[in-house]
């Protein structure tokens, strides 16, 4: 991959390869993540991602607590998207005990998951622009909109981010009075924000120059790296678990899957912008169709599933989030394995960064959309 612009190589300068440890306390590494860079002048010749600074023993911990006790811990995986983490875990545990989920609970789950997608993409786009050098302003506009949705979550579940809202066989509590109207109002106003944001950034020459043809991942490479989520779709692969698995009630909604053409950072940014619009479409349909009824079946809080294995997966905002559970007939899982999307997506980092400038490495990392809570677990 050719590095753009003029620079002196180490041979011309008579210098050595420079090794830089970027992070773990670097503001652009999105948490405690370290990149050991080998630089030829300003060009990255090698990169080694080093993580584990936020390791919290998530998987082993779950083996000592009942299934329901694991639910609040899943909020802390990808701490920006508590709702989708809850859903993924609930989905795989529900496969163990085979319960019917009431219709209303299904709709509530879809609404919460799509709101989470809005939150996550808002933040991602904000931080991506932040990494590009537009410090603060666009990010704060995104945070401002995210805050409204977090307020909705607070009213619904009691917490802004660590929601702990879903349960096996439904959700914890019903929607409070007026919640749906408030949600409809916020969702209705969201496209205006997206329009404004696109005006701010989409055609901006600096954004285009900095992100187009940077960190290109072809269709073949993306599938070989097991990339999932918006990053895979930006590379031109039409793969969305909402369409493939149709888990929950996603077969009832009419929405499109945005696909990128080039697989560069700009495509990843734009795919997310378009995905937010599709999420709004789903939200509008779900709010219009949500039925009255129970939100939870009569399931026991502690259960002993028969010895078996399950894998439940959903399309989290970052990609395929899966939980692999092995039950051994006791109340606790025998094995609890998380397939975190941002960890798997991070494997392509080295490949994408080599040949680019240090400043581009920051953007490429930003476009992957990692959350260290999920990478390290």
């Amino acid at each position, binding site marked *: 991959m050719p590095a753009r612009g003029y620079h002196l190589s180490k041979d011309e300068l008579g210098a050595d390869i420079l090794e830089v440890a970027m992070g773990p306390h670097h503001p652009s590494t999105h948490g405690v993540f370290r990149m050991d860079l080998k630089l030829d002048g300003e060009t990255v010749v090698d990169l080694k991602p080093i993580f584990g600074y936020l390791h919290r023993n998530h998987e082993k911990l779950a083996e000592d607590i009942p299934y329901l006790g694991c639910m*609040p811990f899943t909020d802390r995986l990808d701490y920006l998207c508590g709702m989708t983490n809850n859903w993924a875990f609930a989905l795989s545990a529900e496969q163990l005990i085979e319960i019917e989920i009431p219709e209303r609970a299904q709709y509530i789950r879809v609404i919460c998951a799509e709101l989470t997608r809005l939150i996550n993409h808002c933040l991602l786009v904000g931080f991506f622009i932040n990494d590009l050098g537009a410090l603060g302003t666009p990010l704060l506009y995104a945070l401002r909109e995210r805050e409204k949705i977090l307020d909705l979550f607070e009213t619904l579940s009691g917490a802004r981010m660590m929601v702990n809202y879903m349960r096996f066989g439904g959700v914890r509590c019903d929607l409070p009075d007026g919640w749906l109207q408030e949600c409809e109002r916020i969702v209705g106003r969201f496209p205006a924000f997206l329009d404004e944001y696109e005006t701010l950034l989409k055609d901006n020459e600096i954004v285009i120059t900095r992100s187009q043809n940077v960190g290109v991942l072809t269709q073949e490479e993306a599938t070989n790296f097991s990339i999932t989520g918006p990053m895979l779709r930006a590379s031109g692969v039409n793969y969305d678990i909402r369409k493939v698995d149709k888990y929950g009630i996603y077969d009832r909604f009419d929405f499109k899957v945005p696909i990128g053409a080039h697989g560069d950072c700009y495509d990843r940014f734009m795919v997310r912008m378009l995905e937010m619009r599709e999420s709004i479409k789903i939200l509008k349909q779900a709010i219009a169709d949500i039925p009255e009824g129970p939100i939870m079946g009569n399931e026991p809080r502690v259960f002993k599933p028969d010895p078996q294995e399950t894998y439940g997966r959903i399309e989290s905002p970052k990609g395929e989030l899966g939980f692999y559970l092995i039950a051994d007939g006791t109340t606790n899982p025998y094995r609890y394995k998380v397939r975190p999307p941002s960890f798997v997506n991070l494997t392509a980092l080295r490949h994408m960064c080599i040949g680019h400038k240090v400043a581009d490495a920051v953007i490429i990392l930003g476009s992957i959309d990692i959350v260290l809570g999920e990478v390290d677990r």
Partner: protein
Amino acid sequence: MSLIAKGILQGMAVTAKNFIQSYYKKERLPTVEYPEEKSTVNQFTRNIPFLVYDGEDEIEGMRCTACKLCEKACPPQCIYIIKDTDENDKPIKRPKVFDIDSSVCMSCQLCVEVCPFESIRMDSEFELSNENRFEGLLINRDELLKSNEYYHEIHPIEAQETDDRIAAKIAEAETKKKAREEKARLAAEAKQAAAAMKAAEEAAAETETSATEQAQQSEAKAEAPEDNPETKNT
């Protein structure tokens, strides 16, 4: 590409719009100057558990019975309970020690969900910072106990639902008690009736037997004079 281009100018127009509107539109500037100005706390917010007591007296009105269900349900195990005892070392349904380590608590609300006595509830107090790193963050029973009025103040809807539920429970218990009493009364009556009936039957049987006996006797008596007419005369 020129440096100042259409896209950048468009973006700057958006920024300018936001800047100007932030002076008169609340939506464009939703922040508050925190320590001086405080935004209202959402009534559904949960942060750290507390114990509800009814009435005036903290100890008497305590709803907690030290059943330790919350201690078992707590995923990070931040609750520690010791049951109280009276002077004869007999356990009382009340905690002597009820500690919550607020540095461990992750506000998951699972303790609230398992509590069968509607005792442990979530507080929305968020200013918990403390100078003492160890003892200061460990909240003991007396600090955890808060009145039902306080609960109504922070979570009006939820507290009302809880009160209704407790009232329903009491009413149900009373109707059950009444039903039980009624049943017991009916059973007693039935028993009495049965006993009376049995007695009557027995009495009837007795009278029957006695009648037969009498009849036999009378027969015997009737026979007797024939057999031994002399004895009667004697």
